[in-house]
């Protein structure tokens, strides 16, 4: 799982039927210091997150499908939680 920030939303009419009824979010993975970690990705929303929220991102198929509730569907990323707070020992940064 990764820490990430929601930076946008996509709309798609023509898509796999298993993606219907869920928001498509553009999500930017973050490092612990808040800097960007690689490029933004597209994730299905399992918690009703919105732009600007700091979230927990599942980046593996089985966990993402389970969170979204659509087994055996082409989903490999899902937003599975909001992050309220992160506590880290300063040496870890």
């Amino acid at each position, binding site marked *: 799982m990764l820490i990430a920030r929601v*930076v*946008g939303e*996509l709309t798609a009419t023509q898509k796999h039927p298993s993606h219907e009824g869920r928001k498509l979010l553009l999500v930017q993975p973050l490092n612990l210091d808040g800097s960007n970690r690689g*490029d933004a990705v597209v994730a299905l929303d399992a918690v009703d997150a919105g732009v600007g929220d700091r979230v927990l991102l599942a980046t593996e198929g089985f966990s993402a499908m389970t969170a979204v509730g659509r087994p055996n569907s082409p989903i490999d990323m899902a937003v599975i939680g909001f992050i309220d707070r992160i506590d880290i020992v300063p040496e870890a940064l």
Partner: protein
Amino acid sequence: MYFGRVVGCVWCTTKNPALLGQRLLVVQPLTPQLEATGKRLVCTDSTGAGAGELVYWVRGKEASFPFLPAEPPTDTCIVGIVDSVHAQALAEARQPTLPDPASVPAGAHRKNARKPPSC
């Protein structure tokens, strides 16, 4: 899933039999601001996307799931055609949505916080 644009098409006459009839498209990954990022790659297609269209694709084992019960040997598959993108500038999106914990007095979030006993 990843976001990108279809920039081309690949034709293979000799290929794995399970890939017969599959469209193979060249995709350029994009940032939310529609700038090219990273290397182009080849994806199978489950949506009917065409050249120039914005798409998103899935990577890994899940890429073969749109074709169930067939299991073509693919590791990237386009699963949606993007109609529109609403992307916030990253600096703006970074504005914290929650108050800084340090600026909020302890217990302030509790509406009915009990006062400490006076005796």
